[in-house]
């Protein structure tokens, strides 16, 4: 009956089920008390004036104006974005260059060194590319180096030379 009572309070109880609810309420003081409480709460909750203070409007429109001013600056920054995009191929080459340098360094690292902790290279203005550590797990052998770059994977091993076209 709790469900029917709640549905009734919310105006969602179908008419053909209301008679059963009222019949139950007539016989069940506990449900009557619940209904009484819920409806009292509803009446009381409507007694509190909850008007928006005028100061809120003032404060909001001030903040909105500040927000718009900031937003305009961001828009201007967005206008310059084609310039960054023009730099993107350069950025890609810089990434390759770093990858090759790290690879070459890896070739000359003495094999008994501790593993080098992961290094971070800042590429371009926003992207951070993690370069994996050059591991030297077995004496006399340099593990293949994998460099992941968005859309680009270089797989290098000891026997391979860096691609001649990709010079600095």
């Amino acid at each position, binding site marked *: 009956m*709790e*469900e029917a009572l*709640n549905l*009734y*309070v*919310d105006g*969602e109880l179908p*008419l053909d089920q*209301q008679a059963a*609810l*009222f019949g139950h*309420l007539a016989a069940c*003081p506990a449900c*009557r*008390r*619940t*209904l*009484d*409480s*819920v*409806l*009292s*709460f*509803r009446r*009381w*909750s409507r*007694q*509190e004036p*909850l*008007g*928006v*203070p005028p*100061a*809120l*409007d003032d*404060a*909001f429109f001030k*903040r*909105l104006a500040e*927000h718009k001013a900031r*937003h305009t600056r961001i828009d201007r920054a967005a206008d310059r974005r084609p310039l960054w995009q023009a730099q993107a191929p350069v950025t890609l080459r810089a990434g390759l260059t770093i990858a090759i340098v790290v690879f070459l360094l890896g070739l000359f690292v003495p094999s008994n060194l501790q593993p080098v902790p992961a290094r971070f290279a800042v590429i371009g203005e926003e992207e951070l590319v993690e370069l994996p550590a050059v591991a030297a797990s077995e004496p006399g052998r340099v593990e293949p180096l994998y460099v992941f770059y968005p859309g680009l994977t270089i797989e290098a091993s000891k026997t391979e030379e860096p691609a001649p076209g990709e010079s600095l």
Partner: protein
Amino acid sequence: MIPTDDQELIESFQAGDEFAFVSLYNRYKGPVYAFCVKMLLSRSLAEDVVQETFLRVYENRDRLLNTDAFKSWLFTIARNQCLNQLRRTNRQVSLEGQEHAEPVAPLPEIPAHQLEKSEKIDLVNHFLAQLKPDYREVLILREYQNLSYEEIAAVTRSTVSAVKSRLFKARRKLAGYMEPIMNRERQGARSPAPTAPDAAPDAAPVSGSTPPPA
């Protein structure tokens, strides 16, 4: 549900009409403010959250694809802002080593029908403060905002059956909190002393205990 000019306002606003936004703000600031005041039980915190909410509406207007859903979308933003604020407040409170944000006021020892208006308002806030936020929000959205189960489900990212379950549980708790006061009502003003809740005579004629007309 939404009047047609509401929809026009939203479309104009999305097309860049600033006046349409001001109209939407004026139309909905009251309900959003009331929701936030009841959720946060603080008018000053609510003022801040209302501003934050409408700034987000302004900023994210392009994300609203279905203009029918504006009200639900608006209350979803307000609700998330309120929950964030409650988390911040709780963190502060727990840092201060207190259990409750607000001191629990003793219930007035007079029957409900003799309560002053201000006492009733205080009681409502006292009861709301005792409810967990996930019970409180459904009760507020239903009782103050008059949202349908479907709308509450949309706002709280939930299902209709889950909303009903939470709402009904919230009311059960509420009725439990109100029981002592409602009992005093039944017994009249003669005995404020605590008695067993079930001692109230069932046959006593109580105006509020008969179902209201449908």
